[in-house]
C-alpha cells in the first residue's frame, strides 16, 4: 500500500484530479455544477501538470456539449484516452454520440455531476434525472455517494472501462457531492498506475483508426444485419459486473478501501431494507446504524454499479431475512410504472423468484434535502401492514397524496461533531473564510472536516449560508445542519430579516457581527431573536468586525476577524492552538504579497481577541422589534401564499397544491420583495437636474423613474416629495419628478457616474449623488407611495426617439437580481420600455434567464392595463429557434385572424375590418389606435354567435403588431446557439435578436466564448485568447436582408436607442449586439459605462448600423456611428483584469497579443470605413421583406 496524502477537496476536484491524471484528451463545455472539473483540468494543463503517462493532457473547450461529445468520440476513435465532464442538458446533448461510443465498444468515462433536467422549470441542482435519461445509450453507470467515493470511483470506472471496453458514466450528486468540501485520502500515482493496465491502453490505441492498417467503422447497416449487430455486445455486458468487482477488490488491496457492486450496511438479520444510490445512501447508512443501535432490524443496500444491474449480486447483497424493501430514486419518470432503480429491483427480485414486498419512492429532486428523519420515515413505512408504494419523501403532496410523513425533530448527529452555521454575504468573504478554516483543521489536525455552502438565487447582495462540521471520524452526513452548536451571523441586518437562530441547539454559541457593543446590542435585537437566545440558553458574543478590520488596516474585509472569533469561541480546537494555526495559514496565504499584508492580518487576529465580548443575556426579552412580513399585505394572493414563503426561505414547506401545475408563474413579483441590499442610494437634487434622463436610462435595476404631471397634483404630495418644473417647452404648469426606489437599489452608482449636471457652488455635487440610505428611507417610502399614484405618462405624448423622452416610458422589467451595476439589464429594461406591452421574449439560458426568471421573484412585469412582456426560456442552445417559433405562431394566427375578419366582414361594423386590416402600426399612436379598433372588434364579436367569431376572438389580439425578441448572451449567440441563430437570421422572418455581449460566459463563471477578445484572459484561455473575436455583425450583414447594429449604451445612448427602435421597426430579421460590461471583466462596476465608452473610443467596439431598408432605397445601408479610434486599445483594455492578468502572469505574451489585437482593431476599422463609404449598390440586394 502506498503512503496516502490526506487533504480537503470539493467533490469536483476530487474527481477531476483522477480523471486528469489518467486521460490524454479532455473535451468539454461548461455547465453547472460540473464546470469546475473542466476548469481545474484546464488550469492544471496550463500549469504543465503531467498525467501518469508523463505528458500534459489536452483540454479543449467546445461550442456545446454536442460538440464536446463529438470531439470525445473522435479522440477515442483515434486512440486517445479521453474524458469529459458534464451534467443535465449537457449530458442530453451528448446522447447521440454516447450511443455511438458504446456501440463501438469504446472505453471512456464521462464524469457527471448529476443534475435536474429543465422540465416545468430549470434547476441547476442535483438529482438523477440526467443520468437516467442516458440509461439506454449502452454506457454503464457507476454512482458515488461522497467526495472520497467520487475520487475512488473516478479511477475504478476508468479501470473497469478499459478492462471491459464498455464506456461508463460515473456520477455523483450535483452540488451535494460536487460542491461539498470534505477530507479525503488521495490516491497515489502509483496506485493509479497499478489500476490502469498499460496493455489495455495499448489495445485501445490498436483499435484506433489508422491509415497504416485501415478499416471502416461507422457503416450504415440494413435490416439484414443491424439487429444481430446489436446483440454482438451481450457478452461484454455480461462480463461487466465481475470485471467491476475485480477492480474493486484490486483497489481495496492497494488502498484499503473496499467497495462492492451492492454494499450492504445494517443488521445482518434485517427485515426492512432500503435500496439507494448517490449521496442519500450515506444518510441511510447513518440512520440505519442509529436505528440498529436501538434494536431495529433495518439495513440499506448502496448501489454502486447501477447499470448493468447485476441480479445475482443484488440478491446476494440482500439479507435473507428481508421482508420488505423500499427503493429510493432521485428523479421522476411521469407515467412510468416506477423510477429506474425501483423497476430494476422489482425485475431482479421477480426474475430471481424472491418475494419480499417492494415499494418505490422519490426523494431529493433538485437537491431537496434528504435527512435522517426522512430516511427513518421510509424505513418505518416498510414496517406498516400496507406500506405506500410510489411514495414521495421530503415534500408534502396534498394533491396525489404520495408523500410520507416524517418527524422533523428526529436527530441522530453525535455530540462530538462540531456543527457550525455561518450567515454571510457573498461579498464579505464568509464562504472563503470557512473554506480556509476547513483546510486549516482538515489538513493540519487529525480532525475531519466537511463544508457545504448554500447560495442565494440573486446575483447582487446575495446571502450565503455555510454548513460546516468538524469531528473525530470521517463526516458522512450529506445534509444541511439542523442543530448547530455554533451560529455566526456576519451581517447585523440579517437578524432583522431571517431567523438565523432557527437551527441553534440548546446551549449553542451565537456570534454576531454588530456595530453595537455588548451593552447596547441586546436592545437592538428583534423580540423573536431575544426569546430564542433565552429559551435555548445561547451564549451570545458580539464583535464589531468592521471596526476591528478597519483599525487593523484591513479596510472593509471582515473575514479574518470573523474567522478568528469562530476559532476563539467555538471550541473546535484549543484557543491558543487555533490562533497559531490561523496565523500559520495567514502566512501561507499572504506571504507572497508581502510582510505588511501578513502583519495587518496578524494585527486583525490580535485585535479581534481584544474586541470580542460576551453579552450578558437578561432573563426576559424586552424588544418591541418584530420580524417584518416578507411581503406587504397588499401583495396578491399567490404572492402571499407562495412567493412570500419562498422569499422567507420556507419554500420547502410549500405543499404540492400550492404550486402551478405547468410552471406558469405570475409576472412582476420582484416589486414585492424590498431587498434593501445597499446602505447607500442615489438622492436627487431637483434644482441641479437638467432632466436629461441619463440616470434612469442606465440604471440596471430600474430604480430611477421619471414622471411629469400637472403641478396641481402636488397638493396631495407628502412633505419632502421632490419635484421641479419640467424644463421642456409646451408643458405649462407641469412638474417633473425623478423618484428613486431606494429599497430596490443595489448602490451601483452608475447613475451618479453618468450624470452630467454639476453644482456650480458645491464641489463634487451632481444632480444625483450617493447618500446613506437610513436617514432617507421613511421619507422615500412615502414619496414612492405618492409617486406611484401619479399617472404613468401617456406613451403617445412621449418622444421615443430621445433618451430624454424615453425616461417617461414605464419599465416593465424591474428590480432584477442581476449583479449590482450589471451591463446587460439596462438594454433589457429599455426593450421593456419601448415595446413592453406587445413584447414576446425568448430568452436563452444564461445570466439573463437567471435574473429574468429565477424564483422566487421575477422582474418582468405588467403595466396598469395588465399588459407586459411575455417571457419564456426554453434552453441554452435552441433560443433562436424557440423565438422563431413565436414568430411562426404569431404569423399563423395573424393570418388566421385576418382570414376570419374577412369571413365575418358582413357581420362587423362597417369600415372596422378594413381599418384593422390596413392599419399602419409603426408609431405608438398608430398602435394605440389599432388597440382601440381591436377592442371594438372584440366587443362586436361578443354579440356574434358562431365558431368563426369565437375563433377570431381567440386570436384577435394578434392584430396588434407583436414585437418578438430573442435575447441571450454571447455564449448562446456565438457558440452553442450559433447555428440556430444563423438559420433564423437567414429565414427572413421578422424577429429581433438582442445579444447581450459580455464577451465571456458570465453566468457559469467566466469561460471563454468565441466573443472573447484577442488577448483577454478567461477560463480555458488562461494564457490569453489567441484568436480575435468573431465578427457576428459582418456575418449577418453578409446576408443582405438582416438589420444589424452594434451598440454600447455607455458610448452613445442615443445610438443604442435608435438602433433598438430601427431593429424593431424593420420587418425582417434584426440583430443587435450590445456591449455589456460585466463583473467577469474584472472592473470596478461603477466604471462600467466609462469602459463601454473606451471600448468604442479604442475601436474595439465600433458602433454601427446596417439597415437593409436603406439599401432598398439605393442608399448605403452601412453607417458607422462612432468616430475613428482616438485611443489605443491598451488604454481601454488594461483597465480590466481580464487583460491585466496576462500582463502580470506572462508580460511578453501579453505584449505580443496586445500588439496583434491593435492590428486587428486597425484593420477592422479600415474595413468598416471602406464599407461606410461605399455606395448602396455595392451591398447585396435582397428579395425584399415579403416573407410573411
Amino acid at each position, binding site marked *: 500500500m502506498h503512503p496516502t496524502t490526506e487533504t480537503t477537496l470539493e467533490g469536483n476536484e476530487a474527481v477531476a484530479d483522477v480523471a486528469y491524471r489518467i486521460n490524454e484528451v479532455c473535451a468539454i463545455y461548461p455547465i453547472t455544477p460540473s464546470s469546475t472539473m473542466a476548469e481545474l483540468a484546464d488550469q492544471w494543463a496550463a500549469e504543465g501538470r503531467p498525467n501518469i503517462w508523463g505528458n500534459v493532457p489536452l483540454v479543449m473547450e467546445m461550442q456545446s456539449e454536442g460538440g464536446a461529445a463529438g470531439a470525445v468520440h473522435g479522440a477515442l476513435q483515434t486512440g486517445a484516452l479521453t474524458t469529459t465532464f458534464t451534467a443535465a442538458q449537457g449530458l442530453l446533448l451528448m446522447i447521440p454520440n454516447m450511443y455511438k461510443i458504446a456501440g463501438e465498444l469504446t472505453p471512456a468515462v464521462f464524469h457527471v455531476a448529476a443534475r435536474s433536467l429543465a422540465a416545468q422549470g430549470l434547476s441547476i441542482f442535483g438529482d438523477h434525472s440526467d443520468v437516467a435519461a442516458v440509461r439506454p445509450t449502452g454506457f454503464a453507470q457507476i454512482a458515488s455517494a461522497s467526495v472520497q467515493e467520487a475520487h475512488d470511483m473516478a479511477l475504478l470506472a476508468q479501470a473497469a472501462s478499459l478492462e471491459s471496453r464498455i464506456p461508463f458514466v460515473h456520477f455523483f450528486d450535483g452540488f451535494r457531492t460536487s460542491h461539498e468540501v470534505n477530507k479525503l485520502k488521495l490516491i497515489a500515482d502509483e496506485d493509479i498506475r497499478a489500476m490502469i493496465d498499460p496493455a489495455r491502453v495499448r489495445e485501445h490505441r490498436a483499435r484506433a483508426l489508422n491509415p497504416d492498417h485501415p478499416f471502416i467503422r461507422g457503416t450504415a447497416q440494413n435490416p439484414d444485419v443491424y439487429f444481430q449487430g446489436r446483440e454482438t455486445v451481450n457478452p461484454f455486458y455480461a462480463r461487466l459486473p465481475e470485471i467491476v468487482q475485480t477492480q474493486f477488490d484490486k483497489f481495496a488491496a492497494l488502498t484499503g478501501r473496499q467497495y462492492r457492486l451492492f454494499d450492504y450496511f445494517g443488521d445482518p438479520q434485517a427485515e426492512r431494507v432500503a435500496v439507494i444510490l448517490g449521496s442519500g445512501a450515506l444518510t441511510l447508512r447513518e440512520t440505519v446504524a442509529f436505528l440498529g443501535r436501538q434494536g431495529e432490524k433495518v439495513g440499506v443496500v448502496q448501489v454502486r454499479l447501477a447499470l448493468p444491474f447485476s441480479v445475482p449480486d443484488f440478491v446476494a447483497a440482500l439479507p435473507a431475512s428481508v421482508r420488505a424493501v423500499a427503493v429510493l430514486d432521485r428523479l421522476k419518470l411521469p407515467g412510468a410504472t416506477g423510477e429506474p432503480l425501483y423497476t430494476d429491483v422489482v425485475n431482479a427480485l421477480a426474475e430471481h423468484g424472491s418475494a419480499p414486498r417492494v415499494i418505490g419512492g422519490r426523494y431529493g429532486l433538485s437537491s431537496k434535502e434528504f435527512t435522517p428523519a426522512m430516511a427513518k420515515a421510509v424505513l418505518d413505512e416498510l414496517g406498516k401492514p400496507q406500506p405506500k408504494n410510489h411514495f414521495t419523501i421530503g415534500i408534502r403532496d396534498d394533491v396525489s397524496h404520495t408523500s410520507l410523513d416524517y418527524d422533523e425533530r428526529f436527530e441522530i448527529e453525535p455530540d462530538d461533531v462540531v456543527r457550525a452555521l455561518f450567515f454571510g454575504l457573498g461579498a464579505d468573504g*464568509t464562504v472563503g473564510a470557512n473554506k480556509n478554516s476547513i483546510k486549516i483543521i482538515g489538513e493540519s489536525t487529525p480532525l475531519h472536516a466537511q463544508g457545504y455552502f448554500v447560495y442565494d438565487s440573486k446575483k447582487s447582495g446575495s446571502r*450565503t449560508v455555510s454548513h460546516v462540521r468538524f469531528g473525530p471520524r470521517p463526516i458522512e452526513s450529506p445534509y444541511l445542519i439542523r442543530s448547530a452548536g455554533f451560529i455566526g451571523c456576519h451581517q447585523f441586518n440579517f437578524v432583522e430579516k431571517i431567523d438565523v437562530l432557527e437551527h441553534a441547539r440548546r446551549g449553542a454559541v451565537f456570534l454576531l457581527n454588530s456595530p453595537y457593543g455588548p451593552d447596547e446590542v441586546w436592545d437592538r435585537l428583534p423580540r423573536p431573536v431575544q426569546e430564542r437566545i433565552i429559551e435555548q440558553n445561547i451564549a451570545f458574543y458580539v464583535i464589531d468586525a468592521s471596526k476591528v478590520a478597519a483599525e487593523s488596516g484591513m479596510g472593509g474585509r471582515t473575514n479574518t476577524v470573523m474567522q478568528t472569533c469562530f476559532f476563539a469561541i467555538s471550541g473546535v480546537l484549543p484557543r491558543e492552538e487555533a490562533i497559531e494555526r490561523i496565523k500559520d495559514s495567514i502566512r501561507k496565504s499572504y506571504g507572497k504579497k508581502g510582510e505588511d499584508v501578513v502583519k495587518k492580518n496578524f494585527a486583525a487576529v490580535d485585535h479581534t481577541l481584544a474586541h470580542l465580548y460576551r453579552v450578558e443575556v437578561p432573563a426576559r426579552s424586552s424588544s418591541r422589534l418584530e420580524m417584518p412580513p416578507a411581503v406587504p399585505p397588499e401583495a396578491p394572493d399567490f404572492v402571499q401564499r407562495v412567493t412570500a414563503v419562498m422569499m422567507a426561505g420556507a419554500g420547502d414547506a410549500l405543499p404540492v397544491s400550492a404550486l402551478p401545475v405547468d410552471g406558469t408563474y405570475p409576472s412582476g413579483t420582484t416589486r414585492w420583495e424590498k431587498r434593501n441590499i445597499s446602505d447607500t442610494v442615489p438622492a436627487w437634487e431637483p434644482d441641479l437636474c437638467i432632466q436629461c434622463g441619463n440616470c434612469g436610462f442606465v440604471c440596471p435595476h430600474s430604480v430611477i423613474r421619471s414622471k411629469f404631471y400637472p403641478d396641481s397634483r402636488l397638493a396631495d404630495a407628502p412633505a419632502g416629495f421632490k419635484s421641479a418644473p419640467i424644463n421642456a417647452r409646451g408643458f405649462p404648469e407641469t412638474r417633473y419628478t425623478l423618484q428613486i426606489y431606494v429599497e430596490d437599489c443595489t448602490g451601483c452608482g452608475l447613475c451618479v457616474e453618468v450624470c452630467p449636471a454639476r453644482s456650480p457652488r458645491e464641489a463634487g455635487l451632481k444632480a444625483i449623488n450617493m447618500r446613506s440610505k437610513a436617514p432617507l428611507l421613511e421619507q422615500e417610502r412615502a414619496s414612492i407611495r405618492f409617486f406611484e399614484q401619479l399617472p404613468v405618462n401617456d406613451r403617445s405624448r412621449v418622444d421615443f426617439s430621445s433618451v430624454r423622452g424615453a425616461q417617461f416610458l414605464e419599465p416593465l422589467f424591474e428590480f432584477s437580481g442581476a449583479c449590482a451595476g450589471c451591463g446587460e439589464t439596462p438594454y433589457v429594461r429599455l426593450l421593456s420600455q419601448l415595446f413592453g406591452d406587445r413584447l414576446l421574449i425568448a430568452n436563452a439560458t444564461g445570466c439573463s434567464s437567471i435574473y429574468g426568471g429565477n424564483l422566487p421573484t421575477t422582474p418582468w412585469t405588467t403595466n396598469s392595463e395588465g399588459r407586459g412582456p411575455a417571457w419564456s426560456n426554453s434552453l441554452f442552445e435552441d433560443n433562436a429557434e424557440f423565438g422563431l417559433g413565436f414568430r411562426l405562431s404569431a404569423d399563423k394566427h395573424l393570418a388566421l385572424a385576418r382570414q376570419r375578419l374577412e369571413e365575418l366582414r358582413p357581420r362587423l361594423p362597417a369600415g372596422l375590418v378594413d381599418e384593422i386590416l390596413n392599419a399602419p402600426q409603426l408609431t405608438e399612436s398608430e398602435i394605440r389606435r389599432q388597440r382601440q379598433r381591436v377592442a371594438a372588434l372584440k366587443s362586436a364579436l361578443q354579440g356574434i354567435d358562431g365558431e368563426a367569431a369565437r375563433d377570431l376572438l381567440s386570436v384577435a389580439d394578434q392584430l396588434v403588431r407583436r414585437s418578438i425578441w430573442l435575447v441571450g448572451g454571447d455564449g448562446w449567440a456565438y457558440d452553442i446557439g450559433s447555428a440556430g441563430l444563423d438559420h433564423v437570421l437567414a429565414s427572413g422572418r421578422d424577429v429581433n435578436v438582442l445579444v447581450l455581449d459580455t464577451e465571456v460566459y458570465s453566468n457559469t463563471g467566466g469561460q471563454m466564448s468565441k466573443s472573447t477578445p484577442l488577448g483577454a484572459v*478567461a477560463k480555458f484561455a488562461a494564457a490569453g485568447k489567441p484568436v480575435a473575436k468573431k465578427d457576428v455583425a459582418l456575418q449577418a450583414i453578409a446576408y443582405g436582408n438582416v438589420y444589424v447594429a452594434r451598440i454600447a449604451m455607455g458610448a452613445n445612448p442615443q445610438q443604442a436607442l435608435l438602433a433598438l427602435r430601427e431593429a424593431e421597426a424593420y420587418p425582417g430579421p434584426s440583430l443587435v449586439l450590445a456591449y455589456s460590461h460585466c463583473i*467577469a471583466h474584472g472592473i470596478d462596476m461603477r466604471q462600467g459605462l466609462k469602459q463601454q465608452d473606451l471600448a468604442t473610443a479604442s475601436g474595439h467596439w465600433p458602433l454601427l448600423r446596417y439597415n437593409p431598408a436603406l439599401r432598398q432605397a439605393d442608399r448605403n445601408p452601412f453607417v458607422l456611428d462612432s468616430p475613428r479610434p482616438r485611443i489605443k486599445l491598451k488604454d481601454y483594455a488594461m483597465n480590466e*483584469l481580464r487583460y491585466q492578468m496576462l500582463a*502580470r502572469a506572462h*508580460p511578453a505574451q501579453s505584449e505580443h497579443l496586445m500588439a496583434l489585437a491593435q492590428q486587428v482593431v486597425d484593420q477592422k476599422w479600415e474595413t468598416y470605413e471602406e464599407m461606410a463609404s461605399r455606395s448602396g449598390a455595392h451591398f447585396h440586394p435582397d428579395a425584399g421583406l415579403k416573407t410573411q
Partner: protein
Amino acid sequence: MDLSTNYMGLPLKHPVVASASPLSESLHGIRRLEDGGVAAIVLFSLFEEQIRHENEAFSHLMASGSESFAEALSYFPAAADYRAGPESYLDLIRRAVEAVDIPVIASLNCVSDEGWIDYARQIEQAGAHGLELNIYGIETDPAISGGEIEQHYVDILTTVKSTVRIPVALKLSPFFSAMGHMARRLEQAGADALVLFNRFYQPDVDIERLEVLPSLELSSPGEIRLPLLWIALLHGKIAPSLGATTGVAGAGEVIKYLLAGADAVMTTSALLRHGPSYAAVLVKGIEHWMDAHGFASLALLKGGMSHGRIANASAYERANYIKVLEAFQVPPV
C-alpha cells in the same frame, strides 16, 4: 574636447542624463534615449505604494463576485504565478542593462522600511548601476516637525546604504530649512549623490467644474533658479556628486548648472518636448559654448561659478535678494 564627468561614482562621457520619466518605461524608450545621446538614464520611478495599491485592486477584483452565486463561484482562471511585486520593473532593469552601454540608474519610492530594503536589494540584484531614492511626498500632518522629516530622510538613506553596494543618490525636496546642513547629514549617512530638486505635483483648480486638477506641467527655464542656487552653494563643500534637475530647455541651462557645480544635469522636459535626440543637441550646445569660451574640458568649467569660487559670493546670499528687489522697477500701468 573632454566632456567626461563622474556622477555618483559612475563615469559618464558627458553630463547630460535622462531623468525619471515615461520615456524610460519601455526597453524601446530606453534604447531611444541612448540613441538620442544621453550619458546615463534614470529609470522611471518604482512606487511601492502604487504596487501595493495595484495589488490590492487586483486581489479585490479577482475576488469580486466570487463565492456568491452557485453557478459562478469565481470569474477568472485560478491565480497561478501572477506578478504581485516589482517584477516587471526588475525585468526592465535587466533588459536595459543588457541592451544599452550607458549606466542605468533605478529610481525608487517606498513607504515602508521593508519596501526600501526589499526593493533596493532586488534592484541591485537586477543589475542597476545606481539607485536614486525618490523620497517623494508632502508632509501634511501638522504634528510632524521638520526635524522628524530630516531624520526620516537620513534613516531611509542609512537603511538603503546598509542594504546595497551600488551607489545611491537622493533626490531632495527643496523645502529643508537648512539645506546645507541637511546635505551634510546626508553626506554623513553615505549619499553618493544629491539630486536637486524634486518637483512636486502642485494641483490646479478647475473653476467651472469645481474640481481639483492633479496636473503637472513640464518644467520651464525659470525654474532652474532654486536648484542652481543650491548647487552653487553646495559645490565643493560636500563629497557627494551633485545632480541638477528641473528647467533645462536648452544648452544654456545645462551650462549654468555646470558652472554652478553640477556633476550631471538631468532633463525630462526637453526630451519630451523635442524627442530623445535632443540630448545630442544639448551636448553639442555645451561643446559650442566651451569652444567659444576656451574650455578644453568639463572639469575646468565645472563649479566655475559656484559659491566658493566666485569673488562676489554674496550674490548667492540674502543680499542678492535685497539687491534684486531694490533694482526692481514697477512697470508703468
